[in-house]
């Protein structure tokens, strides 16, 4: 992992207007779920968590808006957005204010996706796009053509809340995926089983569950033959297509069924495999709730998934309504989710390439997952990435801190309690545990120990900057 410092002198950071809150059906809507629905109070704190789990945290005021809708309408506002998403505020730029070039400039792909997370009024659509990017993890490290990665990302966005069946079908003929898992090299004359294996192992069925055999991998690879593309200096990889003549037309035996399976039939057989629904439900659930579903809940969701015709939205709605999300354990925010949420909360725009390095140091560079199994959600936090997260906050605060007269002329009567309250309010009043509030208050008192003269105002100004930073870097804020 590269470690680069990118510290420019701070300049005032402009305030980005907040996007409108998620809009869905009118309040009063009742969603259906075959499993338990959270029945406790749904206030600002619950809405705040929902926005972090199913989006990128609240922009100022959004948690209040969602709380006033009630649980069902708040979930529906996320899962049933109407019309095309809109992006509010300034378009992303590099440090010099030039527009980004997502397809052409190194790292601008990352800025492009990050910007959508920050500015969209349909946060769950972007969050599911991120989920699919992890689920069908494809890296530009070997694809090497950013436009293909962006096209794949748009595919994930189109299918964000739709049919998984259709998603897998379309991913299979997606150019970035074709390059990433070598489908173009899988011809009737020399089958390459890379895609066939990962389609079953990582995308639809899971390894070592008895769902498929090595023979199935090879036979499915034959069904998936026929994809090709052209290459030229001018266009790079282009003209991705399916060529009948390169497809193996003979019989293949997959999961015990023999036929002259086409690639579409082969993909559909994976989704219709009896062990696919359990794989799907468990994996989708794990993106939103850190504790596994009960067996009864899982089976109910599997039945819902199958009866819906392999639709994502019904299962997702049931997960987002479930008590384990609203009243269960906290969950570590993925690094880009944290970053997008910081920018939302602080109303900042994506205004420089530095966010590429900062994201990478925090452990997540979009379009470059570590391997085909995606990012490891159990290992987001260690002593390297916590420092990376601390510095994400540093950079987000840069240009927003008190300085000059605001520090040197700071109110000399502010108590530690008042200082903590002011910093919490400034940071958008994120949920903090009582232990954290106590430690912050203790720091606020200690920060002035022994101070006298000019220090009484200046140190209070520095203390305020420090408290804002500590709140956003705290363990509480790393989780939701």
């Amino acid at each position, binding site marked *: 992992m590269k470690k680069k410092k990118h510290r420019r002198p701070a300049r005032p950071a402009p305030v980005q207007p907040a996007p409108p809150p998620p809009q869905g059906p009118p309040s009063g809507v009742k969603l259906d779920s075959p499993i338990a629905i959270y029945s406790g109070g749904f206030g600002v704190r619950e809405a705040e968590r929902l926005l972090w789990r199913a989006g990128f945290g609240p922009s100022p005021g959004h948690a209040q808006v969602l709380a006033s809708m009630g649980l069902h309408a708040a979930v529906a506002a996320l899962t049933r957005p109407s019309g095309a998403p809109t992006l509010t505020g300034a378009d992303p730029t590099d440090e010099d204010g030039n527009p980004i070039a997502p397809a052409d400039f190194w790292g601008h792909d990352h800025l492009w996706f990050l910007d959508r997370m920050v500015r969209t009024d349909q946060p769950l659509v972007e969050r599911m796009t991120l989920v699919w990017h992890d689920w069908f993890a494809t890296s530009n490290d070997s694809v090497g053509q950013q436009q293909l990665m962006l096209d794949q990302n748009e595919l994930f966005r189109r299918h964000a809340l739709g049919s998984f069946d259709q998603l897998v079908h379309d991913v299979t003929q997606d150019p970035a995926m074709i390059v990433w898992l070598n489908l173009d090299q899988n011809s009737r004359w020399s089958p390459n089983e890379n895609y066939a294996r990962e389609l079953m192992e990582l995308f639809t069925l899971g390894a070592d569950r008895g769902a498929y055999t090595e023979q199935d991998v090879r036979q499915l690879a034959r069904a998936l033959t026929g994809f090709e593309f052209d290459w030229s200096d001018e266009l790079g990889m282009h003209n991705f297509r399916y060529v009948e003549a390169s497809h193996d037309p003979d019989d293949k035996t997959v999961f015990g069924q023999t036929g002259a399976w086409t690639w579409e039939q082969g993909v559909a057989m994976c989704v219709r495999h009896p062990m696919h629904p359990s794989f799907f439900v468990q994996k989708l659930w794990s993106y939103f709730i850190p504790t596994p579903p009960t067996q009864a809940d899982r089976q109910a969701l599997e039945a819902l998934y199958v009866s819906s015709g392999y639709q994502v939205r019904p299962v997702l709605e049931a997960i987002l309504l479930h008590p384990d999300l609203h009243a269960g354990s*906290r969950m570590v925010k993925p690094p880009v989710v944290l970053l997008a949420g910081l920018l939302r909360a602080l109303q900042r725009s994506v205004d420089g390439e530095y966010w590429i390095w900062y994201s990478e140091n925090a452990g997540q560079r979009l379009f470059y997952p570590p391997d085909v199994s995606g990012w490891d959600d159990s290992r987001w936090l260690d002593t390297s990435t916590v420092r990376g997260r601390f510095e994400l906050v540093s950079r987000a605060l840069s240009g927003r801190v008190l300085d000059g007269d605001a520090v040197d002329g700071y109110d000399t009567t502010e108590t530690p309690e008042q200082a903590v309250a002011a910093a919490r309010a400034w940071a958008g009043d994120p949920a903090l545990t009582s232990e954290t509030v106590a430690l912050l208050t203790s720091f606020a008192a200690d920060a002035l120990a022994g101070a006298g003269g000019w220090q009484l105002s200046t140190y209070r100004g520095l203390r305020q900057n420090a408290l804002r930073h500590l709140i956003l870097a705290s363990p509480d804020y790393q989780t939701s």
Partner: protein
Amino acid sequence: MPSCGCNDYSRTQLLRRAAAEAGRGLPAIEPGMPMPAGTGLTRRSFVSRATGLALSVYGAASLGPKAFEEGIAAAAAQASSERVLVSIFLSGGADSLTMLAPTSAHPQYAAARPTLALPGGQGIPFAEDSSLRWHPSLAGLAELYGEGKVSVMPAIGYDDANQSHFTSRHYWEVGEVNPFGRWGWLGRYLDEHGVADNPLQGLALGWDLQPVLAARDVPVATVAEPDNYGFWTPGVWGTVQDKMLDAFGDLGDPPTSDVGLSQARSAVAATGRLRDQLAPFQGGYTTPAGVTYPAGDFATRLSALAAMLDGGLPLKVVAIESGGYDTHSNQAGSLPADLLEIGDSLRAFQRDLEARLLQDRVLVHVWSEFGRRPEENGSGTDHGAAGAGFVIGSQARGEMVGEFPGLATLDEDDNLRNSSDFRGVYCALLEQWLGVDAGPIIPNASSFARPALVA
């Protein structure tokens, strides 16, 4: 392969519960994907003041930095004669038929590899089997082989090889063909023969714990970039900054039963401690005159390892991963460069150890989760079964382990058959190099033949 179809989730739930009970969060795994060994271990950062090393310590949750410091000091007092085993994992499934390319004595080779076969006449002769050649990019390794310092396993693996990266590497990591294994084979060695308070006894060089080292009872550690650990605090300086950074680490201290918060607090607490303690370690390493490592992380880690051993650090088992071997396509474009880096780095490491007079204390074991299929797929190769392995060092016996089984008869999946079993090699390394009984460490140890690996 056990069928989990009867109760798909029992294992997942069991492991998630175990992780939760350890208070360390809930690893997300796919149904059926083996949980990497060591998942759920506590992880804390710690700097040994005596050695100046920044460590992430896994396990031994009840011990504090002071105990580790004493443990390291006690172990260091006797470290100068202890033997060290270095496990090097070539992840992705390295193509053994490139590393040791068959000659025309195996006519199936050129047929199976119309575009990827090493042309006849190229390559470096392999003394023990004239039907094989070292790939020219492995000249560094071939040079050590010529000096009798490399034992070659031309076809190592296990029967009914699993062709999933994630599953097969897991088997190699836990030292048994068992997706349920939770502890690395070297971790089990440390559980049996290590000490409770020396995290350096099992050291991963890199960003993450290597699962081979995952131990149930004793601490192990990782070291990565200890000389770059500053914290930027815009708008805060002086004593307020010092107190702020102390306070940041303190935010990780309160105990909590919430798994997500517990994960975040532990990591923040560890980060705070590490920041405090990193000051002594800013100098970097000196490499002896005449020893030149190639560029890259892999070589940098080996050079650091040689310096750490020379510094008397009490290491017993060390693990390093180097990736990029999953060559489904463009194999000719990427593999030679990767092999060149590995071969040259391993030669430089050996020369470094020799310059420091440490060469008789260190044995290196190189492995990959599987080899690749003899028949190429166009521009690359798919997952195979048996692959190549190496044991390197001045004390290596330098004698081939198992013969090259040839390409005329392949296994039922058209992959190379194995002529040695990785578990037998593990048993031999434990018994012949580390001097311990393999029985308690490798399941069914008595059923595996031990190759002679040590001089």
